[in-house]
């Protein structure tokens, strides 16, 4: 258990600025996800925390003790911060058990810590295998076990589920989460997968261009993103032009209440953010319903996404649940109704940074 405090960390490789002023505090025992697109500097941040790279400016403290500052870095082996790298990076010349026991002292080895952790990650019985005889998911489990074995106060995970297929990924996420909880370790998970970040972490820090643009609980991030870019990166966004009237906005989808905000809210002509699941289909003739035409339908099984065009030409998207019961087809006329509140943004900013659909290759971020 340890609190990790990162203050104003800068790091440049030659002319490329990987980190430009990162502030982040990870509460003791929390699991924080650092979410960002490739090239946003998240892996560099992780390498600075682990001690593989010294920061150019700024400092990192672990439980109040300064572990990294320019010219005064604690070497990685004395930080007690374990790392689960992207591809596992198991020692190819050591068996599963020897891999896990690598960071253990003699007493812990004798006490059977390695087998206990092996069980924790669900690989009991595989201790004598060599790494190249394991599947990708198993290798990743061993890598997690190896990191957890010495009971490090902090565990860093660098896109650990990247190379796995979706079903395996969900299962491994759950198991890793449980293993981390069982040990009470503080964990930092670096990922470009917003679903992974939102589902696993207690707090998500969104990174862009070497800075953390917003951090907070997943619900806050999704519901109240700090800017349009974050809004688009953490989920599907529906943007509507709107005219403000105190705490309400007039939009092509009718009048919508605004999310209560501290500080100054924009006034006049704005854009408002809705999430597709806030737009529901209602029977024709319902009060406040707006007519729209179905342009496209993406079926996902548990839900479906409808791309719709309003009569005035505005394009919106709606997520419909239980899509198998009464599926509207392309070209159908439907009626829409908005639930919940909307978040208003000034009109100028462009909503770039669409959420990646599915997996995409990630270089060193």
């Amino acid at each position, binding site marked *: 258990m340890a609190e990790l405090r990162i203050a104003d960390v800068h790091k440049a490789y030659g002319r490329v600025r990987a980190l430009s002023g990162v502030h982040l505090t990870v509460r003791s025992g929390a699991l924080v996800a650092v979410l960002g697109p490739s090239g946003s500097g998240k892996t560099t941040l992780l390498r600075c925390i*682990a*001690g*593989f790279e010294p920061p150019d400016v700024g400092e990192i403290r672990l439980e109040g003790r300064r572990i990294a500052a320019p010219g005064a870095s604690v*070497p*990685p*082996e*004395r*930080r*007690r*911060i*374990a*790392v689960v*790298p992207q*591809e*596992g*990076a*198991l*020692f*190819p*010349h050591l068996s599963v058990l020897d891999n896990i026991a*690598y*960071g253990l002292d003699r007493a812990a080895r004798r006490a059977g810590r390695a087998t206990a952790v092996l069980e924790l990650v669900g690989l009991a019985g595989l201790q004598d295998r060599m*790494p*190249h*005889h*394991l599947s*990708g998911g198993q*290798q990743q489990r061993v890598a997690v076990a*190896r*990191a957890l074995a*010495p009971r*490090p106060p902090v565990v*860093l995970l660098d896109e650990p589920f990247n*190379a796995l297929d979706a079903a395996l990924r969900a299962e491994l996420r759950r198991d890793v989460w449980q293993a981390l909880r069982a040990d009470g370790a503080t964990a930092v998970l670096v990922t470009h997968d917003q679903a992974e970040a939102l589902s696993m972490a207690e707090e998500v820090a969104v990174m862009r261009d070497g800075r953390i643009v917003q951090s907070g609980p997943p619900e806050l991030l999704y519901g109240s993103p700090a800017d349009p870019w974050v809004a688009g990166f953490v989920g599907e966004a529906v943007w509507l032009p709107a005219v403000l009237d105190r705490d309400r906005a007039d939009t092509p989808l009718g009048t919508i209440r605004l999310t209560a905000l501290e500080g100054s809210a924009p006034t006049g002509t704005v854009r408002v953010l809705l999430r597709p699941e806030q737009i529901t289909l209602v029977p024709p003739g319902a009060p406040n319903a707006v007519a729209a035409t179905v342009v496209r339908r993406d079926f996902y099984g548990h839900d479906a996404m409808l791309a719709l065009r309003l009569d005035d030409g505005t394009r919106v998207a709606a997520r419909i649940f239980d899509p198998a019961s009464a599926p509207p087809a392309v070209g159908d006329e439907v009626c829409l109704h908005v639930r919940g509140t909307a978040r208003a943004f000034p009109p100028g900013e462009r909503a770039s940074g669409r959420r990646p659909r599915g997996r995409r290759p990630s270089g060193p971020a």
Partner: protein
Amino acid sequence: MLAVGVALIPLAYLATRAGEAGWDRMADELFTARTGELVVRSVALATVVTAACTALGVTLAFLVTRSDLPGRRLLGVLAALPLAVPSYVAAFAWVSTLQGDAGVGSFAGFWAAALVLTLVSYPYVYLPVAAALVGSDPAQEEVARSLGRGPWRTAVGVTLRQVRPAVAAGALLVALYVLSDFGAVSILRVDVFTRAIFTAISLGFDRTGALVLSTVLVALTALVLLAEQFSRRRAARYARLGGGAARPPGRVRLGRLRWPAVLGVAGVLGAALGVPAVSLLRWFGEGVSRPGSLGELADAAANSLGVALLGTGLTMMLALPVGLLSARAPGLLAMALDRLAYLSHALPGLVIGLSLVFFGINVAYPLYQSVWLLALAYAALFLPLAVAAVSAAVAQAPPGLEEVARSLGRRRAHVLRTVTVPLAAPGIGAGAALVFLTCMKELPATLLLRPTGMDTLATGLWTRTSVAAYAAAAPYAALLVLIAAVPTWWLSARTGVLTRTGG
């Protein structure tokens, strides 16, 4: 730094002597038609042999590791064995075999030397390339195949490019070796730099002449190194991408070419191994039947082993830090260290020997006339071999693994011992075996620096051949080849030709 110090002793000697001689004397010696001729002939020989060795070494390595060549395990190991045959033994074997049929002197000159040098030095290319081929990532080849390239085009366009660093390193060694070889060129009477330097010293006691020629030779070597550096800059440092779990690479089907390929490989091996073997066997019977020869032989063998082991130990100790540095921190310093070590390699053993005599008398007198000075000479001579092996081996151990190990609370030294070295061990071991072999075979420096009265197999052989006692020389040669064959066999097996390509 110590390692570089050792490598620099000979260069320092050269510089000191050149300073004493003065520029005018140097210029007189330098700008002559003979020097020009020597440059042309040395460069031509080095070029021809390097090209031939590259072609032969890469082809053999590919056939053995990546094709369905019948008997490839055995052939693969045998193909490395010419490394155990010293160039002077091979030259002597060819001369003595062919003389019987066609009269004295028919087998000599440029092309004879090129043939013999190619046959003894192609393993410098073959071994690293075979190791790299076995260790390379099959995924890239699979991608090439999936993009519509046939197996042969994939082999040329992807596989061989992947192993380019290994090819370049091997070719560099061959080029340097040819420039500094002394035994074969003097037996086959090709006037190149080394032979001219030796003649200048041993016949004319012309130190300045020898010095000037050595300086030009060093300059040539520097040019070779520079050229290699440029080619290396364009080639990426290579390592398997992704996880540590390796899949064995696929094989190319030779089809109708199978048996011609076997015949070709067997032909090369016959020329490289068969000729020396037959010739040595012929003389061997006569040699061992002489009274008292067995005791001398045993002494010489023990001396050879002892000195070679000492030299190998010292060389590897010095090479490990340099190799690690050049693989892990490819900065200017590491590159300079690396290149300097190579530069001293091209100095003929003779010059190294002389410079260390000078060093022993003037600087480190307690070492003079001891095996330690000889070991130092070996270290100065063979450091590049060891450095190349160590840095290639360490480059195969991904730095990510070291980082993980350190994050698990292990100190640098512990990580080096438990992760880097075990992963690099096959490569480092191969380097050590190579150094050991070369120490066993080394002749001129051993002649100059051995303690008085001590005979090794190489010097025993030399003493007897120089008085034309071929029968007496043969047992030394045979034993030398046999002892050298042991590490060579192991070396060849460790590249994975034996263990990992079965099936």
